[in-house]
Structure formats: structure tokens, C-alpha cells
């Protein structure tokens, strides 16, 4: 069964450092999302990405965040200067097309900022 793959599974970084979280979507999927889940809280939308550009973003997704699909395969989330409050589980999700109802989630990357 096709699946969304995220790397790394866990990353520890020092405050102020840049991190890049990677996601390999299901091959024929066109829509990509990043969500995050701070420990004990609900899953929150960060950004959606289609046709090599951001289609929607939340208030959380400020100038410290960026996304890209550099090689047509990986879908990355970059945090330029991490803060303690960026510590969370980050989930990548993809779906086939705009109208498909189901999204497939990766297993998540646990980011710990120290």
C-alpha cells in the first residue's frame, strides 16, 4: 500500500538553528500539506501546497517557515530560526487531487528545540 514517508523521525536542534523536515508524498498525489501537533494539543494546519506554490497558509506559518518541492519528489518544510515553541510533531499529508476526500498522513517528525 502506498504511503507518505517522513524523515527524520526525530530531530533535536538548538534554538536559533535551521531545520528541514522532509516528506516523500505518494507518487501521483498533487496536493501537499504540513500540520503540526504540539504535545497534548490538537493537530493544527500550517500550509497547503499545489503546483509548486502555496495555496493556503495559517497564521502559524510566518516568515520563519517555508516550503518547497526542490526535486519534484521531496516536499520540505524549513524553519529558519527555531524557537522553543516550535517543538512539536510535524505531519505531512498528501492527497490525489483537490476533490479527493481522504488525505494520507506520514508518520510524523518529532522536533525538539532545546
Amino acid at each position, binding site marked *: 500500500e502506498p504511503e507518505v514517508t517522513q524523515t527524520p523521525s526525530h530531530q533535536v536542534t538548538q534554538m536559533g538553528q535551521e531545520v528541514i523536515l522532509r516528506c516523500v508524498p505518494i507518487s501521483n498525489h498533487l496536493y501537499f*500539506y504540513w500540520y503540526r501537533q504540539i504535545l497534548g494539543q490538537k493537530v493544527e*494546519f500550517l500550509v497547503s501546497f499545489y503546483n509548486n506554490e502555496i495555496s493556503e497558509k*495559517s497564521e502559524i506559518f510566518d516568515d520563519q517557515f517555508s516550503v518547497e518541492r526542490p526535486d519534484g519528489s521531496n516536499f520540505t518544510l524549513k524553519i529558519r530560526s527555531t524557537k522553543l515553541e516550535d517543538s512539536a510533531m510535524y505531519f505531512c499529508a498528501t492527497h490525489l487531487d483537490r476533490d*479527493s*476526500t481522504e488525505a494520507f498522513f506520514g508518520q510524523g517528525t518529532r522536533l525538539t528545540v532545546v
Partner: protein
Amino acid sequence: AQTVTQSQPEMSVQEAETVTLSCTYDTSESDYYLFWYKQPPSRQMILVIRQEAYKQQNATENRFSVNFQKAAKSFSLKISDSQLGDAAMYFCAYRKGGNQFYFGTGTSLTVIP
């Protein structure tokens, strides 16, 4: 803005018994989708069941079924014959068309042997 509310932070059920998890949502849309996702300790979000708002019939997937009350904006999940592997965090989610998911705060389900 769409909101999804899960009023039960924690629930427990005896193995082989039935449990119902509650979810309410707020929307002005008439056509949308509702989901229940399971998040076991491995943290991967797994789709349990989904419901199209235009369908009156409640969705069913094996031991999992929903009670969808559109007028009341209620979407509860019933797990029958609970198994130890059902222990997880369960998230109710709303989605309009190709837009983002809105998640509730989750219900942690414990299954007692």
C-alpha cells in the same frame, strides 16, 4: 471559522464492549466531509472512517460506525467489540472540499483487558 469540538478528553472501555466517542462541529456549509482519525502510540494518523455530509446513511467500517446528525452538527464514533489494539487517541476532523482539515482536540481511548 470551522471548529470541531471533542468534549471527552479521555474515555475507557472494557475489552469486547462498545464505546461511543462524541464530536460536534460548527459550519455554515452544507456540503463537507467528516472524519475520524486514530493516532496510536506510533503517532501515525490512520483514517478510521469518513462521512459525506450529503449522505444521510451513516458510514460503517467493520466494528466502527458513526451517528451523523447533520442538523445537530454531531458526528459520534461507535466502536463495537473493542479490542486492545483500539487503544489510541481519536481525532474528529472536518473538511470542506479540497481545503484543510480542522481537527478536534482528541479523545484518548483506553481499552481495559
